[in-house]
């Protein structure tokens, strides 16, 4: 733990906080998007907002793997478990996310579907080996961090000649989503969130390196600082972003240099490239169709592709009306702007995906900043009534 505690040191945090307050220009604002849910969680878990001035704002991005899985794909997963009778293996967070008609994998399980929580793709492989007479499907979700383990499982299954293991692949790519967010105001002027810079992903960058973000500084003129997930990492990265903004610099800087290199983990990249290929487009909850933003299993490995193996029915999947998850995932709205927040939608009874995962914005606001959020909502309501 020593290694972690060093990045949670209070005296150092106070020093960084003082430097941020000293250097942030009080007459302007700094809106920084943290793409990753891991950052969102760290910011709330440690109360990082309390250590930066009010004109430094965090805009929460769509980097929560559970949150962005479109409802249609979740309905497909439920169908695999129910209609096709497979053993559906999934990471734990995904189980509680509501699909159409608010049915989740967990409620399907309660009604008899064989849904199992696993901690690793290798657990899913074990289940396949132990149940040779059953089809076992791993629900693959997540960004570049979780893709290599899925690739490894597919290659291992191929090496062993397993005939009852496949992956329902929903792996997505970070840089494409960031590009989409920055293009959004051109598509829809109401979506104009002014962003002064990005806290770049930490674990994702260990795999893909810092190079894939260079288009952000080159094409979009946005400062980027790749940041670790510990609270001191976040504070130091905020200071680095403020300095870039103040000095008019636009660069990809790497605060997380203890792990991230420019090239990333090429061995993992090669493995992913062997198993997966780019999809022309993929739907993200909140963002809609995003070009070249997700991976599919290559035809050479079609035997391990659940989409090729099982016939999935056409369905009209519907989000809960008035759930603001989509706008929240784009950074356009905050959880307090959602009518459902804290009234009908809570972590115990989630209506949208952002309230489920600990990396989701709504869950973070509810769990760690509820008192302030409810007070703000009451104030907004009073002002709206006065205006009326």
């Amino acid at each position, binding site marked *: 733990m020593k290694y*972690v505690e060093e990045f949670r*040191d209070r005296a150092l945090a106070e020093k960084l906080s003082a430097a941020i307050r000293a250097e942030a220009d009080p007459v302007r604002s700094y809106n920084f998007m943290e793409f990753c849910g891991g950052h969102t969680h760290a910011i709330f878990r*440690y109360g990082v907002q309390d250590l930066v001035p009010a004109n430094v704002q965090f805009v929460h991005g769509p980097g929560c793997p559970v949150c962005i899985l479109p409802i249609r794909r979740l309905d497909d997963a439920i169908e695999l478990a129910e209609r096709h009778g497979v053993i559906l293996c999934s990471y734990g967070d995904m189980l509680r996310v509501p699909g159409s008609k608010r049915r989740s994998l967990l409620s399907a399980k309660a009604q008899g579907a064989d849904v199992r929580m696993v901690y690793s793709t290798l*657990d899913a492989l074990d289940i396949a080996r132990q149940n040779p007479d059953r089809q076992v499907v791993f629900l693959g979700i997540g960004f570049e961090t979780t893709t290599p383990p899925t690739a490894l499982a597919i290659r291992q299954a191929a090496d062993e000649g397993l005939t009852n293991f496949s992956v329902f692949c929903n792996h997505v790519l970070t840089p494409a989503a960031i590009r989409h967010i920055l293009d959004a105001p051109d598509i829809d002027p109401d979506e104009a969130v002014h962003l002064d810079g990005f806290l770049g992903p930490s674990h994702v960058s260990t795999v893909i390196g810092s190079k894939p973000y260079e288009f952000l500084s080159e094409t979009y003129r946005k400062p980027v600082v790749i940041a670790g997930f510990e609270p001191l990492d976040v504070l130091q990265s905020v200071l680095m972003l403020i300095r870039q903004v103040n000095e008019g610099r636009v660069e990809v800087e790497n605060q997380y240099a203890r792990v991230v290199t420019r090239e990333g983990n090429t061995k993992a990249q090669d493995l992913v490239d062997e198993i997966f290929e780019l999809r022309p487009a993929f739907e993200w909850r909140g963002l809609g169709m995003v070009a070249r933003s997700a991976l599919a299993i290559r035809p050479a490995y079609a035997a391990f592709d659940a989409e090729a193996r099982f016939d999935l029915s056409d369905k009209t999947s519907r989000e809960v009306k008035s759930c603001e998850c989509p706008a929240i995932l784009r950074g356009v709205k905050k959880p307090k702007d959602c009518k459902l927040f804290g009234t009908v939608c809570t972590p115990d009874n989630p209506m949208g995906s952002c309230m489920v995962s600990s990396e989701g914005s709504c869950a973070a606001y509810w769990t760690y900043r509820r*008192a302030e959020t409810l007070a703000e909502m009451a104030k907004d309501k009073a002002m709206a009534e006065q205006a009326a």
Partner: protein
Amino acid sequence: MTAMQPIRAKRFPADARVTMSHGGGGRATSELIASVFAPHFANPLLEQGHDAARLDRPAGRIVVSTDGHVISPLFFPGGDIGSLAVHGTLNDVAMGGARPIALTAAFVIEEGFPLANLERIAASMGEAARRAGVPIATGDTKVVERGKGDGVFITTTGIGVVPDGVEIGPDRLAAGQAILLSGTLGDHGVAIMSQRQGLEFETTITSDSAALHRMVADMVAAVPGIALLRDPTRGGLSSTLNELVEGTRLGVLIEEAVIPVKGEVASACELLGLDPLHIANEGKLVCICEEADAETLLAIMRSHGEGTDAARIGTVTAEEPGFVRMTTAIGGTRIVDWLSGEQLPRIC
């Protein structure tokens, strides 16, 4: 166990298993009781051999508490379902400020359960009760068909006596009172998780399962005015504190940096994405008292083996009623929420 018949203990073969007839109420049941339970539980109350144990009426008010134990796995680092069933109920009685005087135990055993394991559990229960100085006064044994249970479930009930002048209860909470914690958080939950199928990891962490009534007796004797005692079991410290302030005019402010957590527990929590504040404990208590009594009580806790790491972790406040707020390690603040959903089933 209620009807102790003059049936002598029998030596079962090492690989013997529980059968439906062990729960049938006939000779086999009596043999099981005489062979497996009686040697370990032996005490004058049990030996009365009545359907109901008869206790002398003590001075003071009586408290009673009951607890079902369904933990999986049955044997874990630092204890087993037997010792846990004794400690868990003794602690519930002690949290009323009471001195426990007797326990009862009811067993639901699954057909096919190895008798050697049952005996191991009975021995551990007997040992825990003897160490605690509290007899298991009466009990019951039932057997369910294979597949209708999971090894063994144990329900224990505890009876205790509260000394005059001790009035422990949530209605005694007031702003300005000190919040004390008797030791490190999360040991039990992490020890159990380390043994769970699909999650096994190597750790030297053992469950903190322990009886706290002797420490409580000393605390109550020195400071009869203690406002509240609670053991932060399922749901951890966060649930205990939230239960206290939810719907009241009071809030709580705690300080993350002073909450004791073992390094290894903290590491396991990091890895599994858990918060030590949400993890179950089986040998810890939260004490809320007047500010002036805090140091006295901390000194008493620290003089007991179960309270060596006791710490003052926070204060009851009148600000932000209904919320538990925490100053984080880096000096920010956040709400400490209830555990949402279920972190890990069958932890106790």
